[in-house]
């Protein structure tokens, strides 16, 4: 029964990780920018939701909308004011990485100074567990997060395969000129990638705020998981990133079966490392993507 409990918890966590990983993979896949400030989008939207819904008692749809806007604006800001100026003169991996890293540093500490360094949660009846079976406690939020994740993926899939901009985003990584053939501007498509990639983390951030809680360092943790999930799932595969996130969420929870809670981050690293050694291209990546 413990196993089943952990499995369900793992699915819930996996749903959250899958969402954030997909966001990162979408951005990296289409723009080739190693956006290590992605965790900050998570942190910002989570804290905005918490501040509005918990501290200011704003109704949750408004708070959610605000969180989405905040994440999208952050993504746009990074693309327009950080990455684009850098790409204009020296777009090496180095400069992009360090700049993104610097931003995440500033954001993390800004949040800590403004909102405090403790764990903050949003109390909601949704997080109260119900014993649905003997020894199995599931809160409504678990089911909600899994359903929302599935809906978001379905919507994203539709967007990427049926809309002009979505298809252009997939083309952007292979062949920027192809994007022009569609009558679109690669810069615009990149902006869309950042907006959508950042907005996609919001459900995960909100659910985390309601369950495990937020702290300023959550961005780093989310970043590690997104990176690991992208590699495990295969670079260039959004579907892979989702699977990778799910796998990592499950692994982290199932590890509690045998290990102490402090080892949860270790589990992420072990899974990542195993893939790097045995299957660098990940679940769905092409073998050349690993070179």
């Amino acid at each position, binding site marked *: 029964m413990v196993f089943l409990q952990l499995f369900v918890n793992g699915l819930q966590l996996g749903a959250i990780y899958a969402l954030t990983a997909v966001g990162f993979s979408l951005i990296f896949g289409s723009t080739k920018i190693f956006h290590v400030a992605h965790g900050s989008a998570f942190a910002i939207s989570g804290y905005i939701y918490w501040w509005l819904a918990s501290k200011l008692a704003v109704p949750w749809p408004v708070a959610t909308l605000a969180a989405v806007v905040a994440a999208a604006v952050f993504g746009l800001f990074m693309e327009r004011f950080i990455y684009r100026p*850098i790409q204009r003169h020296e777009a090496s991996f180095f*400069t992009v990485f360090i700049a993104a890293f610097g931003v995440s540093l500033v954001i993390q500490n800004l949040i800590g100074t403004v909102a405090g360094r403790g764990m903050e949660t949003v109390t909601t009846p949704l997080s109260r567990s119900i014993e649905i079976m003997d020894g199995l406690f599931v809160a409504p939020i678990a089911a909600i997060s899994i359903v929302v994740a599935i809906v978001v993926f379905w919507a994203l899939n539709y967007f990427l395969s049926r809309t002009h901009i979505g298809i252009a985003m997939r083309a952007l990584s292979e062949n920027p000129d192809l994007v022009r053939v569609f009558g679109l501007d690669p810069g615009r498509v990149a902006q869309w990638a950042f907006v959508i990639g950042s907005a996609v983390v919001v459900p995960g951030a909100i659910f985390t705020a309601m369950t495990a809680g937020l702290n300023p360092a959550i961005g780093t943790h989310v970043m590690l998981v997104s990176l690991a999930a992208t590699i495990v799932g295969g670079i260039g595969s959004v579907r892979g990133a989702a699977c990778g996130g799910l796998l990592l969420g499950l692994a982290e929870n199932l590890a509690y079966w045998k290990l102490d809670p*402090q*080892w949860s981050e270790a589990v992420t*690293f072990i899974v990542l490392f195993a893939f790097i050694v045995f299957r660098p291209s990940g679940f769905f990546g092409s073998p050349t993507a*690993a070179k």
Partner: protein
Amino acid sequence: MVTYIISLAILIGINAILAVTLNFILGYAGIFSLAHAIFFGIGAYTAAIAAMKFGADFTVATAAGMVISGVISLALALPALRVRGEYFVAASLGLQMLAVTVFSEWKSVTGGIGGLIGIPPARLFGFDVGDPVLFLGLTLACLAVILLVMRALVRSSFGRNLKAIRDDETAASALGKNVALLKTLAVVVSSSFAAVAGSLFTFYLSFINVESFVLEVSVQIIAMVIIGGTATLLGPVIGAVIVLLLPALLTYLPYLPPTEIGSIQQMIYGLAMVLLMIFRPSGLWGYGSDQQKRGEP
């Protein structure tokens, strides 16, 4: 006052070693590591155990730290460097997080969260170098030796190979260079020498615990390298000076709440990194992409 300055100088020296060794892979080979603090820690813990359990003197303790650090870096680098650079970043971040947990949980070896205390003062060839002034001399000597070794490496064919890889990996391959092996060697060299800083740190404080080897420390070392500039050997040293003097400077500003100084420090690093990357990617002391004439040291 004098003791304070000597203490600060020792800390600057230790951090300068960390910055210079990180720059070897970051600036000269283009490899990103978020785990440099871990090799610092491995050197520190190994030296502590060597001194406490085996009565080792400074040279033996340091050598032991270098070997263990090198071996563990090999375990990280061999798989992760076979593939693209982004993998190494992710793997190093993972190692940083994992190792902190190991440092905190492996009580029998690392003393757990409490750390190791009662480390005997450093002995060098039979002489006690625990005295602060002598220890400062030892630290600076180590820094000087490491700088000389780095200089020799950078000017050698190995150094050119690394710079070639940094400038264009594909062209380097096309000239017959075994890129994965070269990168791995660079990481091993960098991590082994970082362990020297760990050894100095252990004997200096007589007490170490995991708090000194967390992700924030890796970040601080990166900040030193970026701010000082990656293009020269001395850039990181200057970066270390600036970054370590920053908190002292900040305490003099009256309107800053003391509890926030750590945060503000990190925000300044972050801001510096962003602004430098946009306007002056080679740091304060390196050449900018628009100002040419300086060559490599």
